[in-house]
C-alpha cells in the first residue's frame, strides 16, 4: 500500500520522557500509514529533517518514540503540546503484513518502536506473535503493555544475553520473522533464522523521499533507496556484512 507523501503542519499533543533520554511524542493528525513507515520532521535550527519511525497509529492521532542521541533529537525533545511541527509523511514502504502465521517479532534498542504498530496490525490478521526484544538498559523497558520476552546484559530477572542467545537457548515455534534494531543484531538474526521475514534498517538520509540517493544500498534485486524502496527489506535481500 502506497499512500501519498506530503508536508503537513501538525500539532503536538504531548512529548514526554518515558525512560532516560527516550521520549514518546504524540501528534494530532489522522495518519494513513502502514507499520514500518516513517515521518521526516523539520526541527528548529537544523537544516535536514529528522527521520523517525511511526510507533502507533490511532484514529485521530499518532505517536513516535525516539531517543535523544544528538542535536536534532535534543531540540525535538523540547517541543511541547500545542507546538506545530512541519512534517513530511508518511515515507518509506513499511512492512507487508502476513496472515495466519506464527510470527517472531524481534527488536533491539530504539529499533523497537516501529514494531509496536506492527504487532497491533499482525494480530488483526490472525497471526500468533512472539515479541522478543533486546535492551542494553533494562530501564528502557517501556514496552510492558506488549508483553515482550526481554533479553538484557545488565543483571536482572530477565534473560541474560542478547536476542540471538535467547533464540539459541530456547526452541521457539515461528515460521515468519520481522525485525528492527541495531545492525549487529539484524546481521546475526539474518544468519540465524531459516524462515522468511522482513527487516527494517536505518541510515543517514538527505531527503527521505528518494530524490538525493544519499541512502542507496545494494540488494539482491539491485540498488535500492532505503528511504523510498525501504526501510523494510526481505530478510535475505541485503548483504548486511557490508554495513
Amino acid at each position, binding site marked *: 500500500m502506497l499512500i*501519498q*507523501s*506530503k*508536508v503537513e503542519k501538525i500539532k503536538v499533543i504531548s512529548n514526554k520522557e518515558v525512560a532516560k533520554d527516550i521520549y514518546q511524542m504524540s501528534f494530532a493528525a489522522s495518519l494513513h500509514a502502514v507499520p514500518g513507515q516513517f515521518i521526516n520532521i*523539520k526541527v528548529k535550527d*537544523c*537544516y*535536514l*529533517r529528522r527521520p523517525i519511525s511511526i510507533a502507533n497509529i490511532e484514529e485521530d492521532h499518532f505517536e513516535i518514540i525516539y531517543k535523544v542521541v544528538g542535536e*536534532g533529537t535534543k531540540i525535538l525533545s523540547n517541543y511541547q503540546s500545542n507546538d506545530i511541527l512541519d512534517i*513530511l509523511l508518511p515515507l518509506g514502504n513499511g512492512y507487508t503484513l502476513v496472515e495466519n502465521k506464527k510470527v517472531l517479532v524481534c527488536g533491539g534498542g530504539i529499533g523497537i518502536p516501529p514494531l509496536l504498530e506492527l504487532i497491533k496490525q499482525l494480530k488483526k490478521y490472525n497471526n500468533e506473535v512472539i515479541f522478543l526484544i533486546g535492551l542494553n538498559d533494562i530501564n528502557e523497558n517501556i514496552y510492558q503493555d506488549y508483553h515482550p520476552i526481554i533479553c538484557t546484559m545488565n543483571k536482572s530477572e530477565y534473560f541474560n544475553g542478547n536476542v540471538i542467545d535467547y533464540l539459541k537457548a530456547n526452541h521457539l515455534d515461528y515460521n515468519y520473522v520481522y525485525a528492527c534494531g541495531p545492525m549487529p543484531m539484524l546481521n546475526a538474526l539474518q544468519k540465524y533464522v531459516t524462515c522468511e521475514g522482513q527487516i527494517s534498517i536505518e*541510515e*543517514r*538520509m*538527505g*531527503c527521505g*523521499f*528518494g*530524490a*538525493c*540517493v*544519499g*541512502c*542507496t*544500498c*545494494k540488494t539482491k534485486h539491485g*540498488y535500492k533507496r532505503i528511504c523510498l524502496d525501504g526501510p523494510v527489506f526481505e530478510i535475505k535481500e541485503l548483504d548486511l556484512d*557490508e*554495513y
Partner: protein
Amino acid sequence: MNTKIKLLNLELDNPIIPASGTYGFGYEFVKFYDINILGSISLKGTTIESRYGNPLPRIAECKAGMINAVGLQNPGIDAVLNEEIPKLSEVYHKWVIANVAGSTIEDYLECAKKFDACDKIGILEINVSCPNVKHGGLAFGQDETMLYELITKLKAVTTKSLFIKLSPNVSDIVSIAKTCEKAGADGLVLINTLLGMRIDLKTRKPIIHNKMGGFSGPAIKPVALRMVFQVYQATNLPIIGCGGIENASDVIEMMLAGASAVQVGSANLVDPYACQKIINDLPILMQELGINNLSDIIGGACDE
C-alpha cells in the same frame, strides 16, 4: 510580471531549475506538484556506465547546509536515454538539461555524443566539479589545460549548447571561466559544492564514509554570489547561478549578481515544494520590487 528569461536561444518560462542530483530524473516530484511549472530541470549526473557511487554514510548535516558524498550514482547513459528520459517526458513537456560526468575525456565525449541525438535535451551541463569521485570530475575543473582540451573536443561532437558546471574549490574562478569561454563553452553553471567534512565526536571519525564530501545549502550562497558576480564581469557567457537558493529573494539576488537563471539544489531535499513556492512567490516579489521584466535585472549589481 514577466518571469520569462532566455539562455542563448532557449526560452524558459521562469529562471527556476532544480539542480542536478537533488531532483532525480524529475518524475519523482510529480507526487508533490505539477513539475511543468519549472523553467527546466537539470537531470542527475550521468556517466557512460552505471555507478553505485560511494559507500554509506553519504550524507552529513551542517549548520545551514549539508554534505553529500553520493559519488555520481546513476544507471548509466543508455538507461537514462531509454528509460529515465522517456519516463520524464510523459510528465514533463519542456526541454531539460542533461548533466554529463566522466573519468576521462573519452567518457565525456561518448556521453555527449549519445545525448546529442536526444531532442528532449536543450543544454548539456558538463560536470567538471564533482568532488566525490576518485578520477576525473573535479580534476577537470581545476586544471585549465585539461578543461580547455575537454571543451574543444566536446564542441566538435555535439550541437547542443555546452554549459560548464564549475567548482568553487579553485583559487581563481575568473581565470577558469575565461578558459571555458576561450575554449568555446556556451555558458557556465556556478557553483558546484564546496569540499567539506564533519567528524563524529563519539566515533572520532569522519561522519561520511568517504571522509569528505560536497558542502551545499544556504551557507554557501555568499560564495556562489561572489563567484557569479566576478565571472559575470569577466566573461560574456550566460551564467546559471547555483548555491544556497531557497526562496524568491535568493533568486533576485543571484540574478542581480549576474545569473540569467538559477538552480535550486539542497532546498528540494528539505522541502520538496521548494521550487513550486519560489515560482509562486517570484511575481509577487517582483511587483514589490518594481521589476516588470525579470531579465532586465541580470547583472544589475555589477558596475558599468
